[in-house]
């Protein structure tokens, strides 16, 4: 499955290794990966945990569309998106996007596209539990891919 949403911790490098074994060796010339991990601070404040809420049916549909759109825009061999939901702690991987292609420009550009589109289109919301015990929704959206 090119799209996976998980409510337990995951190991991006292990998933990449598993996924590579499904690809035809010798056809791939380029792979680009992006891994987003939870930091222990954000906007100058210590963060002790992060809870990711999502809209499950829409998330899966939207992520699958993003991958479909990437295949239409670039010449790709394969693409992968993995996203964590639920409550996590600093150092935990949040998101993995990966592209395999023949040439590097496709891999670099499509990998970034997956992330930027995910950040603007896929219905996930972050709530931070702060080091002082309070909590806050992350309300800042990020710009799309241009």
């Amino acid at each position, binding site marked *: 499955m090119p799209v996976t949403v998980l409510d337990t911790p995951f190991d991006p490098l292990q998933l990449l290794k598993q996924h590579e074994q499904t690809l035809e060796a010798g056809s791939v010339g380029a792979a680009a990966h992006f891994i987003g991990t939870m930091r222990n601070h954000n906007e100058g404040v210590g963060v002790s945990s992060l809870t990711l809420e999502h*809209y499950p*049916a829409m998330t899966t549909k*939207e992520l699958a569309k993003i991958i479909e759109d990437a295949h239409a825009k670039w010449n790709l061999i394969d693409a992968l998106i993995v996203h964590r939901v639920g409550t996590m702690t600093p150092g935990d991987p949040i998101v993995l996007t990966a592209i395999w292609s023949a040439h590097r420009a496709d891999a670099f550009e499509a990998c970034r596209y997956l*992330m930027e589109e995910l*950040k603007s289109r896929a219905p996930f919301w972050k709530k931070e539990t702060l080091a002082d015990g309070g909590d806050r929704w992350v309300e*800042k*959206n990020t710009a799309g891919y241009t």
Partner: protein
Amino acid sequence: MPITVKFFASLREQIKSPASQIDSAGIATVADVWAAAADIPIPDHVLCSVNLDHCTAADSVKDGDEVAFFPPITGG
């Protein structure tokens, strides 16, 4: 058939008693769904979807649809 309504994240916490289903009688647009289901005016920057596709508040809604409202996306 009723219209299913969902509110997510900070928006869900702002609305005291959100309806999860509303009758479709008199409902033409997504904005009408908000007015029938929420007890506060629609905030700026609210996003919405009909049947899992992004939409605008002016988009039309029909019997049996699932309409969702949510704040700006912050995943990834």
